[in-house]
């Protein structure tokens, strides 16, 4: 369960009083001088916060995640994760890609194990960790299967298990459920929140789906394109314990409508 402190709606004064975990300041990125992707992008997040980035295609959402992960260089500005630069912070972050990015020649268990091999864990420690994290995502029984034998939703769960195996403090998710059908997407959203209750990582979540962003997030960043920038921040003031039934509640539906309107305003 979340503490009362976590459940409290976030206000800016509140954010200042708590230590900042992720801080992005005046970040700009351009592939060429006349092709800016991100312009003066600033964002801070507290530990344990779930922040969604919502915006039209080409607003630099994915690029932003890659920069935070140290996979893409920035042109100017700064990114600090728990006081570290992106490359140094890799040890405490995990990236969940839009596709499951599994190695087809490894079994499910060995795929999850890969993340632990990078950390240099001993074989016995790895095996125990793999087993516990697979059962955490509800895949305890499929460890010896190959990715090819799994459905799309199961593959995504494996990908999530691999990301969580290293107990990250920051989870970067780049439209992880975009390729799934709506039912599966909803289910995985609920599971993701339930897992977050237990492990309490900070999340930066890129999505195209307004409902998904509202359901998952503590805060939604609406982004504009050409170049990518922060247009608006919306605090999601919904109860902390979110279950499937929330989706039919008026407060939820109202907020989805509001966010949709604001997003449409940016596009125009």
């Amino acid at each position, binding site marked *: 369960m979340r503490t009362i402190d976590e459940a409290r709606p976030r206000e800016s004064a509140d954010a200042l009083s708590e230590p900042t975990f992720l801080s992005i300041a005046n970040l700009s990125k351009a592939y060429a001088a006349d092709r800016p992707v991100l312009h003066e992008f600033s964002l801070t997040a507290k530990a344990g916060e779930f922040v969604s980035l919502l915006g039209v295609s080409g607003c630099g959402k994915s690029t932003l995640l*890659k920069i935070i*992960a*140290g*996979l893409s260089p920035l042109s100017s500005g700064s990114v600090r994760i728990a006081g570290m630069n992106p490359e140094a912070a*890799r*040890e405490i*972050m*995990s*990236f969940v*890609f*839009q*596709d499951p*990015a599994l*190695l*087809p*020649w*490894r079994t499910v268990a060995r795929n999850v194990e*890969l*993340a632990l*091999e*990078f*950390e240099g864990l001993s074989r016995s420690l790895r095996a125990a960790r793999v087993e516990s994290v697979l059962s955490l995502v509800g895949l305890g029984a*499929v460890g010896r*299967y*190959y990715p*090819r*034998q*799994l*459905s799309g939703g199961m593959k995504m769960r494996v990908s999530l298990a691999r990301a969580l195996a290293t107990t990250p403090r920051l989870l970067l998710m780049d439209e992880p459920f975009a390729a799934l059908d709506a039912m599966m997407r909803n289910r995985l959203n609920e599971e993701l929140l339930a897992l977050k209750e237990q492990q309490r990582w900070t999340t930066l979540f890129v999505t195209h789906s307004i409902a998904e962003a509202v359901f998952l997030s503590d805060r939604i960043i609406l982004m504009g394109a050409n170049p990518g920038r922060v247009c608006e921040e919306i605090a999601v003031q919904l109860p902390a314990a979110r279950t499937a039934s929330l989706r039919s509640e008026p407060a939820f539906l109202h907020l989805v409508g509001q966010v949709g309107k604001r997003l449409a305003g940016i596009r125009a």
Partner: protein
Amino acid sequence: MNSSFWRLPLLTFCSLVLLWQAAVVLFKVPDYLLPSPVEIAILIPARTRDLLRALLVTGGEALGGFLLSAVVGIAVGLFFAISTVIRRCLYPYVVLLQTIPIIAISPLILLWLGNGSLSVLFISFLISVPAVVANTTQGLISVETNLLNLFRMGNASIAAVLFKLRLPHALPHIFVGLKIAAGASVVGALVGETFAGSSALGAGGLGYNSIYALSQLATPYLFALILTSSLLGLLFFLLVTTLERVMVGRWHESVLGDRMD
């Protein structure tokens, strides 16, 4: 594969052989032009020793050429994958090697390596190596960006990226190259022998024996040699596909069928 899979092809084969036999008997075709299947079938057991010896000679040369092209081809592919500069400098020449008719340069090989099995092996190698290099390189460099990013996120070493990601990813591609090379190495050995086969009478391989049989108009024996050559090609193909099944059979889509939902 079940027995019904083979029923129709087998029927086709039997019909064609019967048709062939009937045509030869009906039109009284002389055997130096086209021997009948029965004639060839009678000849094979009588000359099994010669055929087997020729098979071993050519098989040895082709196997040597194939193994050399596998080792060299994969090694060159690895270098190409590690260094973009090396790849840019040399890759066009690998493609070029594919376009050179090896027959055209085989006199040169004869000049440098002399008559005999070594030249034949080298010709077999030259014909089969480009396919291995091209497919290995392609497999090693065509890894999805997200998988590479995953390894970068784990601060994986160059060796880890190569051996845990690029090489396993390239395996199916490498086997495509090896399958082409297996067929080509047999062709290379046969063609090579027609140029550089042993000059000792009857001691040469299948290619050399074919030329000899032709000069004698021993057409039934020529047919027996063709059959034996086909057998050699088939053996090589089976060798590679078996190896492929063992190494990538468990996971690759081309082999694996069932899905779990």
